[in-house]
């Protein structure tokens, strides 16, 4: 390994690099250090190199910033979770070292800044590499910049360590700096090259990712779940939305507010969440499928209006990027505890569609699907994402936009004299006529939250209520019949089936993979359609001794998490139990495996 290799040569140059398929890197510092930039560049680089990638970051508690981490997992195989342990820990400060050394795996590499950190060098479990990042950055950048640029030094260092393509990386850096001034960019490149040039030979090891064999050749796109969702909505033809800012969902509205005008649409920042959902309903009444995005507290506030959309049967997409609850809870942490309110949160019998994407890629497709379901069933659809999916970055195959992107023009087809907005058909699905639609005989529809007859007018006959209640329910029962039965990963029968939904999919699935590799096979299944549930689950469950629902929520009054309770109610299968956790963090694979074993006792 040579110190003189030209970082501009454009191909991987590091000699003796060990081929690897998977690496987890955690950068621990302060949010002000720009570690997020490094992490995101690494993630994007991986995507461009056809590696799979998943990232995870924490948000500091003080508004001005503070301790923060960015973790990237890069893999040549499918990356399902961000990794329980890390292979490389970068510690900028003493607090970074102390708080995070516990997650470094035995045999892992600690890269620390000896200007700031005094590690316990007696601990021989790790390879400890001191890299004076602060002083070398200052040196490389030239005094005045202080240690701004340390992050770029680190990027160079990592590029060398993992034998990354520096031509690609420098091109990305240029993109990133497009709007920055020349001086800053010079410093950036100086720092980056200094890092790349730093000899880490002492640790005896460089790595090189082996090419990803699963790739089909389609390029990867790299983005966070919130982005995927926003772009999914645009692809599906959504041209109106309204929301009120709330962490961790705000990014969705921010993207839509910036992007929609380009598509001839608009996004309204409303005065509160109630106004937002009502405006989206207004656009829905106007013939659009409109969206409102929020997080837990906002969903609570939208409850009444969503009930109206159920009653009036108006298409509406509601995105809930879940965070720790109840109340203000843990605004920047993940949780999967809004399932109950999503399904049951409305007064009266108030059936609506609820789906949950399982990862970032699925966030893109789920939002498209939600639009289609909302339109087809003329119903509110709630998408349950969460902070982990919303914020983490993943690489996934570029969607086939040619096939997906659509317009969604308003349907003004004139209606006949027999048109009834709430006709009691076997399917139960209304096809509303928005304002602007001529109706023969001028028999115009009223959409209403009062119980109504087929014409949308309040009736005196109590029978209407039975009929319409059944109609609204039947609509979802018909949908349920058409839903695909989820696939089982791993053995089709056996001791234990891990059931996941939303972001517990990745770790649960990885737990199954690990257990299979270890010869104690667990199976895994992910439910994307939460209300109504897809058919066929009962038959699958029958083939397992235990069905453990893995969910990031509390085990509840009677010992079961939110989805577990619903499955038990539906199937009355006493073998349904749960693996639950409410600490604001995604499951580690190890936690799942341990819980499986603990419950086996």
């Amino acid at each position, binding site marked *: 390994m040579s110190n003189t290799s030209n970082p501009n040569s454009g191909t991987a140059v590091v000699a003796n690099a060990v081929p690897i398929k998977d690496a987890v890197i955690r950068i621990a510092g302060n949010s002000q250090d720009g570690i997020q930039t490094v992490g995101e560049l690494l993630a994007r680089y991986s995507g*461009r190199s056809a590696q799979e990638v998943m990232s995870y970051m924490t948000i500091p508690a003080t508004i001005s910033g503070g301790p923060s981490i960015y973790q990237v997992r890069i893999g040549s195989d499918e990356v399902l979770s961000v990794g329980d342990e890390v292979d490389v820990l970068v510690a900028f400060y003493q607090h970074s070292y102390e708080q995070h050394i516990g997650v470094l795996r035995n045999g892992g590499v600690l890269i620390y800044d000896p200007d700031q950190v005094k590690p316990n060098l007696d601990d021989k479990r790790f390879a400890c590499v001191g890299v004076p990042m602060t002083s070398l950055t200052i040196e490389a950048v030239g005094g005045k910049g202080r240690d701004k640029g340390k992050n770029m030094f680190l990027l160079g260092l990592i590029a060398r360590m993992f034998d990354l393509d520096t031509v690609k990386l420098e091109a990305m850096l240029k993109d990133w700096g497009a709007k920055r001034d020349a001086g800053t960019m010079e410093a950036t490149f100086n720092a980056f090259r200094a890092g790349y040039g730093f000899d880490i030979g002492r640790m005896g090891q460089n790595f090189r990712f082996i090419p990803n064999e699963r790739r089909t050749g389609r390029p990867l*796109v*790299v983005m966070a779940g919130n982005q995927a969702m926003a*772009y999914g909505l645009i692809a599906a033809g959504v*041209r109106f939305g*309204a929301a009120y800012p709330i962490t961790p969902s705000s990014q969705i509205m921010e993207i839509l507010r910036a992007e929609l*005008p*380009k*598509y*001839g*649409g*608009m996004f*309204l920042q*409303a*005065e*509160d969440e*109630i*106004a937002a959902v*009502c*405006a*989206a309903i*207004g*656009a*829905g*009444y*106007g*013939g659009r499928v*409109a969206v409102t995005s929020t997080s837990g507290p906002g969903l609570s506030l939208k409850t*009444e*209006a969503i009930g*109206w959309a159920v009653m*009036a049967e108006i298409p509406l997409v509601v995105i809930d990027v879940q965070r720790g609850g109840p109340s203000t809870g843990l605004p920047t942490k993940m949780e999967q505890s809004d399932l109950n309110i999503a399904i049951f949160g409305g007064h009266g019998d108030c059936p609506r569609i609820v789906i949950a994407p399982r990862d970032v890629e699925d966030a893109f497709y789920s939002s498209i699907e939600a639009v289609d379901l909302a339109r087809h069933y003329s119903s509110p659809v709630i998408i349950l994402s969460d902070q982990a999916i919303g914020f983490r970055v993943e690489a996934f195959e*570029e*969607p086939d*936009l*040619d096939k997906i*992107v*659509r*317009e*969604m*023009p*308003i*349907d*003004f*087809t*004139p209606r006949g004299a027999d048109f009834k907005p709430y006709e009691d058909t076997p399917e139960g699905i209304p096809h509303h006529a928005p*304002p*602007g*639609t*001529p109706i023969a005989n*001028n*028999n*115009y*529809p*009223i*959409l209403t*939250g*009062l119980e109504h007859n087929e014409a949308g*007018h*309040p009736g005196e006959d109590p029978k209407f209520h039975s009929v319409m209640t059944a109609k609204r329910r039947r609509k979802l029962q018909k949908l349920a019949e058409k839903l695909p039965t989820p696939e089982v990963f791993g053995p089709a029968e056996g001791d234990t089936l891990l059931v996941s939904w939303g972001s517990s999919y990745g770790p649960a699935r990885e737990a199954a993979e690990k257990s299979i590799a270890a010869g104690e096979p667990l199976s895994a299944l992910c439910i994307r359609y939460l209300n109504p549930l897809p058919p066929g689950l009962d038959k699958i469950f029958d083939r397992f001794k235990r069905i453990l629902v893995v969910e990031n929520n509390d085990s509840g009054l009677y010992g079961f998490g939110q989805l577990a309770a619903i499955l038990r109610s539906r199937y009355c299968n006493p073998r349904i139990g749960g693996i639950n956790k409410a600490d604001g963090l995604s499951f580690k694979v190890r936690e799942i495996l341990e819980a499986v074993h603990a419950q086996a006792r």
Partner: protein
Amino acid sequence: MNNATNNAIAGAAVVAAPGQPVQPAPYKKVDLKSDRPTWCPGCGDFTLLDLYFRLCERRQIPREKITTVSGIGCSSRFPYFVQAHGVHFIHGRAVALASGLSLSRPDLHVFVFSGDGDAFSIGGNHLEHAARKNIHMTLVVMDNYVYGLTKKQTSPTSPIGFKSKTDPTGAVDPPTNPMKKLIAAGATFVARTSHTNPQHALQMMERAMDHNGFSFIECLSECVEFYPGAFDAANPRKGGQFTIIEEKKNDGTPEDQKRHDPSDEAAAYKLATLPFPGVFGVFYQAKQPSKNDREQQLIDTARAAAGNAGPLASLQKTFARLK
């Protein structure tokens, strides 16, 4: 690239209604009658309904474009009684729904009919922000100074001393002043009228309809069941006074000095401080681009910057950056 994407909210005009008559026969107000109103005989709301019919008839708003939105209350039963597109929404949120409807469907002129509780109590905030943003719509509050539908509780406009089921010994809280509220919120058309002067009320509705942006009318509308006589002091036939605001004509005459300039916000506010029955007419009117206009501007700029690319090309470009 589709031309229609140049409309505020792409596609609003895409699917032209096939078979829609180019020149439909003019309709009469009786054609607009729908369900028999459930209001009490003598309720002021009947007048408003009739005036709305007259307005539509006079203007010949295309039948299929008449869109009536309401919340919950006696007054909010309005849409059932109009044979046209309509929404009977939830309590207090009609303006919020109308905001989304208006912004996504700038081809409509949305009329919202609301009550004093619906608009000023539970709905008070939506009103204000729609007014501030100048979202294009006309809001008519049928103000009876009481909660009608729920049978006589105090409303935000009930005067001190009014005996209701929630103030059996008389209301104690100073009432909301709708004119002040809306002027302060930044509404660009603020008027006051009464069902007892249908001529005047219709005039206000016509002017509101011609206004670009958010127009607001408070129309006194007597609840004969729970607050009979509330507005006698404003009714000449009951010995009261219906004083109409004289508006500046800018005719250079000395009389004109004393007339009210509806574009003068402070003067409008001063008029609003008069005690009941106060004055009637347009308190305030300002020419300002509507939110609908401003959003259209954003769309035009963004689409021009994107070279009027279609959705596929635009999204592909974005995804290229995300690789």
